[in-house]
């Protein structure tokens, strides 16, 4: 089980979940994961789109009541 960094960006107006994810991916090793919690539906779409474009790995997107959980693995 690789180590996972949690970003609770629920309700955060700045810098926003994707910006936080990009920063967090720079701070971890290849193979490690980041879980982003976001109350913004847009993040559930934006993050997978960006992850695919850049070449990291999507582990999963899950709706959990009033927020979304998006898990990404650093691939490069």
């Amino acid at each position, binding site marked *: 089980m690789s180590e996972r*960094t949690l*970003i*609770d*960006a629920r*309700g*955060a*107006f*700045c*810098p*926003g*979940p*994707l*910006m*936080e994810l*990009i*920063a967090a991916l*720079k*701070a*971890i090793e290849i193979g490690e994961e980041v879980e982003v919690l976001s109350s913004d539906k847009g993040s559930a779409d*934006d993050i997978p789109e*960006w992850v695919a*474009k*850049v*070449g990291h790995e999507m582990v999963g997107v899950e709706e959990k009541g009033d927020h979304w959980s998006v898990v990404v693995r650093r691939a490069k």
Partner: protein
Amino acid sequence: MAKKILIVGGGLSGTIVANGLCRQLAHQMRQGAVSITVLGTSDKHLYQPGLLYVPFGRIREAELFREQKKVLDRRINFFIDPATHIDVEAKTVSTQSGRSFDYDYLVLATGSRIRPDAVPGMEEGAHWFYDLDGARKLRDALAAFEGGRIVVNVNAPHKCPVAPLEITFMLDEYFKARGLGDKVEITYTYPIGRLHALEPVGKWAVPEFQKLGIKSETFFNTKAVDPKAKKIESEEGVTLDYDLLITIPPHNGAEVIENSGLGKAGWVPTNPKTLHREGSDTVFVVGDTTNIPISKAGSTAHFEADTVVDNIASLITENRWARDYDGKVYCFIETGMNTGTYVWFNYTTPPNPGPPSQMIHWFKLAYNRLYWLSARGLL
């Protein structure tokens, strides 16, 4: 036994916390019941937002600095002795000179630093204005620039989130004033799919850019800079040519944080309301040092510092918690050389930038001097 308050970091938030506590705990300090110590890295206090004006010759370098000893209340024990190891279990901080400080309350205010070295070619190929040396070099480069492609390149994470937009607007006006408006093409790149992380600010900037003819490239995370070919390449597969590259480099927190096992990349996991280091009720974290997903900005640090001052003073004098941090941030935004606007927001209120005006620009210029009252805990 005196309660020992130890503050690691003598930047904006460490200084406001130290001076604010001094004012609130003056009586206890006179009685010898409280001591306040600051461990800094420099004898000078730098007003960082002033760096934005250096490349345009609109601030004198002497205005950016004060003697840190004079900014701090004289009752504070101040040492220019950087922390080298922080042990939150033993409640001790070791320093470069070999000393060891213990504490009852610890405030981590170690800030952030630019890392142009983290991107291949960036140090050699790019200019920046986030430190004085970089701002001076950019000033010289702008003065020598007679036309061509300028790329303003923003990297995550970075502090002062509106500064990239500000310098873009100021560059446009600077070159138009020099009669080079039709010879200069400015392209602004941003890591996510809009012009600013704050969605309302991003939306507001779109027509402003269109009006001025500023180009943009979103979803642009810098992979490498080629200083010889003068090209910058993104992780997303886009390459831009440039004649002058101005970057906002990615940032890290302080090395001592990471080396002490307190947080990846130097950011300390922090409770967003209490500002306690997660899992520790005697360690507070303020300013850029936190991992809270809000702006790394001077005003964030200021409002967090005010909260920490109230809570430490209340815990010592009344043995109770005073109040939570509500996520408040207030940022001026220069929209040119003569106009400005602002945003404020907190955890529950979204930002909403108003129309730019000369009045707000003047207020920002005034704040560039009023800052020294903030640092002293008076404003």
